[in-house]
């Protein structure tokens, strides 16, 4: 049976070392490049005609735009427009990573904790940086829930602080774990199928059962691939909201 972990192994394609660091162009980098290339090519070619009455591709491109724009409008507000390119890029890169990962023999770069972690940390540090830049020390009133008696703050402030600090971890682990678990399950079921078919006899018939399960699981995984990209972008919006307004 094939090793279900093997699909996550990073393999260098073009070895590259700069300043003593191994920056090889790997399968992960390849699929990141494909994700960027595909999304850029598609969006550019879809918007080439700039038609007043859009064609199919243009409708799709505008749909993604409106989807992210609506998410920002609802969760950050009209002031959130300045974060639009950031949220859009985060959404597209995660969505492309998840979706391209569904292609057999491809590599899912969002199934690596370091990738999701860097994205989450970027958002977290942006929130802290812009928040302090804009609101100064007032930003830290984020950890003081409004209308709470002073003694309770002794308990609540640490909780608020912890829930704030844990944000990049939950954000990155949620995406990474979902992607990894889904792909392992798919691989394990596929492994069952090949193992049973290899046994011969009754296995030749029973081997199709895990394969059928896999068909259902793939559609579920496609849903999760979209849903996790949506959740990632949505939480990005919710976190970025703290830089715009602080509740009192």
């Amino acid at each position, binding site marked *: 049976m094939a090793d279900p972990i093997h699909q996550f192994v990073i393999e260098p394609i073009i070895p590259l070392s700069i300043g003593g660091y191994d920056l090889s162009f790997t399968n992960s980098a390849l699929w990141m490049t494909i994700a960027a290339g595909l999304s850029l090519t598609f969006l550019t070619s879809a918007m080439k005609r700039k038609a007043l009455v859009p064609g199919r591709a243009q409708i799709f491109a505008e749909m993604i735009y409106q989807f992210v724009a609506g998410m920002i409008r609802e969760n950050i507000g009209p002031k959130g427009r*300045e974060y*639009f390119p*950031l949220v859009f890029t985060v959404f597209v890169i995660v969505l492309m990573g998840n979706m391209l990962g569904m292609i057999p023999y491809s590599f899912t*770069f969002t199934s690596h904790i*370091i990738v999701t972690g860097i994205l989450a940390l970027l958002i977290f540090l*942006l929130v802290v940086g812009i928040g302090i830049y804009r609101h100064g020390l007032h930003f830290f009133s984020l950890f003081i829930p409004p209308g709470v008696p002073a003694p309770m703050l002794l308990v609540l402030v640490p909780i608020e602080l912890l829930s704030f600090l844990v944000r990049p971890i939950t954000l990155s682990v949620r995406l990474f774990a979902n992607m990894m678990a889904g792909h392992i399950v798919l691989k394990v079921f596929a492994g069952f199928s090949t193992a049973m078919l290899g046994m011969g006899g009754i296995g030749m018939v029973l081997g199709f059962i895990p394969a059928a399960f896999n068909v259902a699981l793939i559609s579920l995984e496609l849903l999760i691939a979209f849903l996790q990209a949506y959740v990632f972008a949505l939480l990005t919006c919710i976190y970025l909201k703290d830089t715009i307004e602080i509740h009192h």
Partner: protein
Amino acid sequence: MNFLRLPALTLVGFILIGISAPQAADMHVIGADPAADADHVIVVDEQGQVHAEEHGDGHESSGGLPQFNPSSYPSQIFWLVVVFSVMYFFFSRRTLPEISGVIENRHQHIQSDLDSAEKLRQEAETVHKAYDEALDKARTKASDLFAEVEREIKEKSAAQFQAFLERSSKEVKSAEAKIEKAKSEAFEEMSTVAAEVAAKAAEKIIGVSTDLQKAKSIIDALHKNNKKAA
């Protein structure tokens, strides 16, 4: 604009953070001296990478997740930063303004269409109102004219009728006078004729010539008597 540059700067910061940890680990494995000169470090590092990869492969076959093998972190972080920056740059500079421009343009187009439709509708309404007014005016004018004409006709016919009455009564009167005159003339002639006849008769019968004038006066007197008797 200041904030737009922040993601890129932050990511560059990550390169430094992310790379320093595994680098330190590698150096520890092969025991390289961080104080060594630059050339030496690179050579040692190349060896270090080979080492690390072998170490990693061994680790994977023994069941560890590749996700937790830090030897691949610098490469992943580096390429993520590159790809993310390129995407961010293109999206923020080209793609997104393009899409928002198209959507905005369409929105304006639809709005202006709606506006002009509304204007045309109002125009049509004004025209319709003006038409109604003109129609009303024309109708009252027509009925006025009709009444006027009727009145005129009535007046004219009444006047003509009056004139006809006057004329006819005048004619009747003059005719009556004429008749009267003719009558009296006829009588006059008749009495003259009677006088002549009487004179002739007297001449024939008794053989006396009579004065015609005398005879006539006698006739007249007779006639007057007759009239009185009648």
